[in-house]
């Protein structure tokens, strides 16, 4: 059984290329480009890992999704991605239960390494 991964980002390019990369490595990948879709997919598929863009549609609703995920299924590993280094948001995310806050830009290799680290 392969790991289920959900990628949430409002950039279609990001979703597409990350999905391709991970699928080649036999992960089961789901994508979502906004908050409602993200929660819908999450509830339906219960992925083990979520890559979550912090700023969707220019607000910080990523934290809302994180909160919701942690409420529904606390053992989900959530990586938050942020375009800027913002210590305040980083602290909030860690308190809410994010595994790590990653800073964009980031390579596919690094992202896959994070998955491996989390499930070794």
């Amino acid at each position, binding site marked *: 059984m392969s790991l289920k991964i959900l990628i949430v980002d409002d950039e279609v390019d*990001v979703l597409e290329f*990350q999905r391709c990369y991970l699928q080649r490595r036999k992960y089961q990948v789901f994508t979502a480009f906004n908050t409602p879709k993200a929660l819908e997919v999450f509830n339906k598929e219960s992925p083990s890992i979520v890559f979550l863009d912090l700023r969707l549609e220019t607000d910080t609703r990523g934290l809302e999704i994180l909160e919701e995920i942690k409420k529904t299924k606390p053992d989900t590993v959530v990586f938050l991605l942020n375009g*800027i*280094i913002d210590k305040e948001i980083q602290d909030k995310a860690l308190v809410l239960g994010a595994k790590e806050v990653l800073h964009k830009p980031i*390579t596919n290799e690094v992202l896959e390494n994070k998955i491996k680290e989390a499930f070794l």
Partner: protein
Amino acid sequence: MASSDFVINYGFGFYPLGFIPAIISLGIFTYTILKYHLLDIRIALTRAGIFIIVYLFVLGIPFLLGYKYDQWKLATWVTVVLASAGPFIYLVLKRQTENILLKEQRRYQEALRRLSATLSLVKDLERLLKLVVLKVSRLVRVEFACIYLAHDNKLLQKHPYTIKGLFLDLPKEVSFDSSIIRYIISKRAPVFIEELSSMADGFNLTSGLIIPSFVRNRLLGFLLLGPKTSGALYTPEDANLFGILANQLALAIENSQFLTEQEKTQATLFAKERMASLGTMAGGMTHQINNRFHAILMASTDALDNFNFIDLSPLSEESKSYIEQIRYALNRISENADRGGRLVNDFLNFSQPDRLQREAKVFDLKEALQRAIEMVRIKRAFDQEIIEKTIPEQTSLKISGSFVMIQDALFNLIDNALDALEKKAQAIKDKELTLAEGDFKARIMIKMYQKDSLAVVKIQDNGIGMTKEQLDKVFIPFFTTKATSVKGTGLGLFVISKIIEAHNGGIEVESGYGQGTSFTLSLPLAKEE
């Protein structure tokens, strides 16, 4: 005098000694009058003179008529008329002569009154003080004048004025604890220099006037006037008049100090606001740019990854070389996007003025340094023996600021040092440096110590070093000694220097090409609570 004479009147005869107390007291009175200007002696003598002359006529003419011409009846009438007119004549004559005598004084009294009225119009403190010194010294015609203005616990000399060729021999500052200042504060009115002559730290002057300015009970400063060029002494009228000027001056000083302070606050507020809005803008911009870099990086790393799954063996050598070219290009794209992101983050680091405030706390610099070294160890593969630490074991060096920012700054300096070592090794290999490969023993020495109230970190390497030209430009943004295609954004040292500056610290660099580089950071120790 009568008081010293009464013993005789009561019948206690001391003669010939009895008149001695009378003479002594007369002497004392005269001395005090002259010494402390209790009476303007010229005015007193003039008044007495006029009085004597007028009454010489008032009484003299009737007696002359009576004795010489035996006209006693006429003399009586003349006496009545003259005695009635006498006081009027005396008053008229007195006013006329005093006008002549005091003409000079009246002139500057009037001018001082006008000056007092204009003081509140001058907003700039320095201009105000200068105006007062110049106007007053010209009006009163003094040999010299200056202002002492309160600053912390002392008064500083300002705007000295002297007539040509005179050297002003006055202290540059006077402490609030000195006996002169204590005397001025207790008197709260203009002080004649003569009053201070007995004080050890008094001004070394023969004559002069000190005009203090108070606001509520606070001494703002005083105007010191030297002797008048005419040689005339300061009179109590002068003192009164200057008292009024002093009050006006106090208000004007307070006014202008308040305005200057307010302008300063406004300027900082404005600058802060501008920086804050720049920070917000930079934040938004960074986010957008990083998202673009992220999309590029996702695409390029995914594209590259495809090669791991393609079987290239059936392809011709020519096709393989094309594939290789594509792979190379994708690598370049990835690296550039990655570096672009780092550049943007570096930029953001110093355009966020409130970051330091948000992260500020008191921490041990030692801990930040150790964490920075640890970070370098994780990030880079190198011989651990290279780094040689001299860090005091026991003492902690507490500083106040952002732990993360300082840790980043130290990390970058050590990271740079490692680059410099690698570059030197390369230069030796390429025979750019005339040194045998075996003779180069790479070293980074990290020292930490306390110097007075500063915590100092010195990071020294024996790497490639910098030429004089490179050294001069080292803190300029976007200047880099590293080929940009290899590494570095050119923002590193600029950002580091900004971080240290923001912590009220200093950064010094010494370097010689082929010799190595050393950076010395000094940061003020946090004040003990």
